[in-house]
């Protein structure tokens, strides 16, 4: 059978539709009951030759992680590999054998990666959830255009579309985490709110974000203190500029306004470079402040650089431990 090397206009149009469908499920805030998912989970276990497990549903990612850890201390074994292998091999091969590289890449970018990028990726990464919406959406697309027809995959997809934040499979017990009850985003789809926590879970847990940047205090006593100070403009400007994390600093500066900060600190321009780097001297602060723009995102960042450097481009080169001559050899910047 010849491989699919080019998508039709309708198939191209369907990519964003499938991607959106999965993102909408991830952000649906849908509640979940054991009755809704019992048959699906039993089917998965039986498919792997295992007995139907005890199913436990948790209301937040933290409860899910802690609960799973506590219960598995009694000696349960993960059966994730069996679950994965029971569908993955046949699904993967069906697509590799039927689709050319360019089509595969195109669908991976437009469906799989777009879903992966727009769900709750921060929380996913940080708490090591095994949420599978990214790769499932990729194969779901091939199912919807008729390239793939794998009954096992269809069954798993039907189950995932019921709204699962996380799931872990152990030999006698299956631990499921519900989706958050509220998710707030900015106009670019990033987790964001300056009025309340951007992610709210059913057991009262919260995650605080400003334009996709997390401002959680810590996992065990997270009251969003830093986030609260920022949104109320109660964090002094010097403390804002001293935030350790550069993405938090960027988000805070964008909230306050870079020009506002420059003006309020009465910063004095020392040097300017046509590549978008401005170097400032601030009263009572030893290092100079370098303001620079990311060439691909357009975001404004700031960093402190040595007072001994008085040229903006030299200061930028210093940040990467380079001389100006080396910095001029930068081949690609993004």
């Amino acid at each position, binding site marked *: 059978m010849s491989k699919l090397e080019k998508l039709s206009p309708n198939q191209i149009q369907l990519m964003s539709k499938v991607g959106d469908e999965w993102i909408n499920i991830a952000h649906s805030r849908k509640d979940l009951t054991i009755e809704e998912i019992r048959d699906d989970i039993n089917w998965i276990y039986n498919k792997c030759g295992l007995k139907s497990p005890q199913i436990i549903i948790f209301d937040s990612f933290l409860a899910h992680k802690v609960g799973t850890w506590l219960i598995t201390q009694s000696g349960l074994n993960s059966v994730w590999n069996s679950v994965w292998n029971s569908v993955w091999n046949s699904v993967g091969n069906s697509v590799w054998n039927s689709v050319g590289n360019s089509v595969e890449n195109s669908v991976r970018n437009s469906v799989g990666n777009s879903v992966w990028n727009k769900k709750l990726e921060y929380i996913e990464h940080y708490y090591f959830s095994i949420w599978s919406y990214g790769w499932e959406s990729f194969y779901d697309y091939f199912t919807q255009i008729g390239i793939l027809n794998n009954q096992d995959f269809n069954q798993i997809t039907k189950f995932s579309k019921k709204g699962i934040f996380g799931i872990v499979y152990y030999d006698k017990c299956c631990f499921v985490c519900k989706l958050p009850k509220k998710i707030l985003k900015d106009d670019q789809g990033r987790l964001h709110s300056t009025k309340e926590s951007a992610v709210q879970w059913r057991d009262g847990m919260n995650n605080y974000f400003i334009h996709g940047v997390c401002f959680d205090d810590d996992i065990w006593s997270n009251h969003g203190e830093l986030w609260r100070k920022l949104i109320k403009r109660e964090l002094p400007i010097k403390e804002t500029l001293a935030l350790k994390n550069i993405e*938090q600093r960027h988000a805070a500066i964008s909230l306050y306004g870079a020009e506002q900060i420059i003006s309020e600190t009465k910063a004095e321009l020392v040097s300017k470079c046509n590549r978008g780097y401005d170097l400032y001297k601030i009263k009572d602060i030893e290092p100079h402040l370098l303001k620079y723009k990311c060439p691909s995102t357009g975001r404004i960042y700031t960093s402190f650089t040595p007072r001994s450097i008085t040229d903006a481009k030299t200061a930028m080169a210093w940040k990467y431990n380079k001389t100006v001559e080396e910095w001029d050899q930068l*081949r690609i910047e993004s």
Partner: protein
Amino acid sequence: METYYRHGDLLLRRVDTIPNKARKTNTNILQVGEATGHSHKLRGKAQIYELQEQKYVQVEEPTELLHEEHKPIVLERGTYILEHERELDILGEIQRVQD
């Protein structure tokens, strides 16, 4: 002439070889941001090596370096060392940029 590629807070510099003691990793992710969860990851025929804290990349065929927000860049075939952005803290101590 040295060749540099900048991707957000990462800088990749062409080098001749990877140290013998560096070990292969089983990931295509070069770095993950703590506050955003966004990652710099490779797509293509490339292998990441690690020696203590230092990372290297062996690119066999032109390979994309991807990130959720930065535009993709293409690394040409070759060997690279990963270098990080640095800055001073407000008291003047050098620190690696944390994102």
